[in-house]
């Protein structure tokens, strides 16, 4: 089954004609080390990305690399929109009331969104 885990982001080349043609980003595999590093990063939404809320979460389109991304839960959309306003990813997850048990799937989604350039290092970070 594709994309059936909450919080999983699927990347896609924008379908050039008829179809949306998404390819799902590889399932996230992150070590403990990578996880804690990610929790401490200050990320923000790339300003070339447009978000469109949908019942399943949201569609994100990157005007720079032309990738279409599926955000697989409305809470992921909330988190993605909030990242820039908090010092760290961990702060954002807490501020958005994401239960600790759900953090791994959110981190996997965030990691995938960094890979597809939807999220970037906050310009004001440091």
């Amino acid at each position, binding site marked *: 089954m594709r994309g059936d885990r909450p919080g999983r982001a699927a990347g896609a080349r924008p*379908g*050039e004609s*008829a*179809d949306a*043609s998404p*390819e799902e980003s590889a399932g996230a595999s992150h070590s403990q080390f990578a996880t804690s590093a990610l929790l401490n990063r200050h990320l923000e939404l790339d300003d070339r990305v447009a978000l469109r809320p949908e*019942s399943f979460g949201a569609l994100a389109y990157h*005007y720079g690399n032309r990738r279409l991304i599926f955000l697989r839960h409305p809470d992921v959309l909330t988190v993605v929109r909030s990242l820039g306003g908090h010092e760290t990813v961990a702060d954002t997850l807490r501020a958005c009331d994401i239960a600790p048990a759900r953090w791994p799937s959110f981190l996997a989604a965030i990691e995938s969104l960094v890979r597809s350039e939807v999220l970037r290092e906050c310009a004001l970070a440091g």
Partner: protein
Amino acid sequence: MSAPSLVDELKGGLDAPICLTWELTYACNLACVHCLSSSGRRDPNELSTTEAKAVIDELRTLQVFYVNLGGGEPMIRRDFFELVSYAVDHGIGVKFSTNGTYLTADAARRLTALDYLDIQISLDGIDQPTNDAVRGAGSYDTARRAMDHLAEAEFGPFKISVVVTRQNVDQLDSFKALADSYGAQLRVTRLRPSGRGANTWAELHPTNEQQRQIYQWLLAKGDDVLTGDSFFHLNALGESLPGLNMCGAGRVVCLIDPVGDVYACPFVIHDEFKAGSVRDPGGFAGVWRESALFTGLREPESAGACASCGSYDACQGGCMAAKFFTGLPLDGPDPECVYGHGESSLAGVAAGAAPRPGADHSRPVTFRRR
């Protein structure tokens, strides 16, 4: 209860399409034998510049991220640059398909100056004889000249768009090499029996053996080659090719034709798949959200004759357009079913029984005495 899969949710339809195909004009200087829209002559009722801009405004409100402009030859429209700029300035990305005739050095420079723009140049043979047999005399040189202009203008990675046929399937590696030589991206799509393609499909469509060849080639190329998700019928052969693996018609995509009619599928310009018009009181959004046709397409589909086949989940029964224009039932196998179920069904379609394509704007054939 587990959450529905992404594909299941998309099959239920979205409030607005992810992207859509918009044929800007039926006018074309070429007369390709497989033209999906039977283009040639401009339709006197085509959308005006003002109407086209109103459609763009509406797409912006709906947050449609990008449009695929085609035709006909879209660059023939006098307001082509005006419309493209208008869309891009309003945050709607534009991808357009062209035969390259009007892509002069000057046009290439103007296009290079625009953001959010992708260009697809059609080429259906790696050499002049293969290409021109399908697209017409001189069309190979024209396309290559347009590519040269884009390269000289440093447009960046444009796309070379190939419809895979029985005649060019052995050239896939050469097409890739050509794209690489330009720093371009290769895009290969499936031949559909739509438009004038209805008349030539039997001669041009890849054989069953070639279908397997295409599948293996695409599998090996992975993300390197764009397909517009057009070969999902081949997934019955095993591992899925990249893509959504579903028919997006009326669910996540649709088509607007030059006169503003809205069709469910970019490959089916036919009354049976016409949902309304952007000129209707509710505009495009009204058609997308409320037409009986589109809401019907978002209902769960039946596997029909394919229900007993173990590959249905993989291939989804194939392409609606391919079935429709070859006279096959929509809930049965694709005419190019890799297991041959389509071929046996085709044998049962009486001559002349397949639906004829809709609006034909082909130029009249004239007999020239020499």
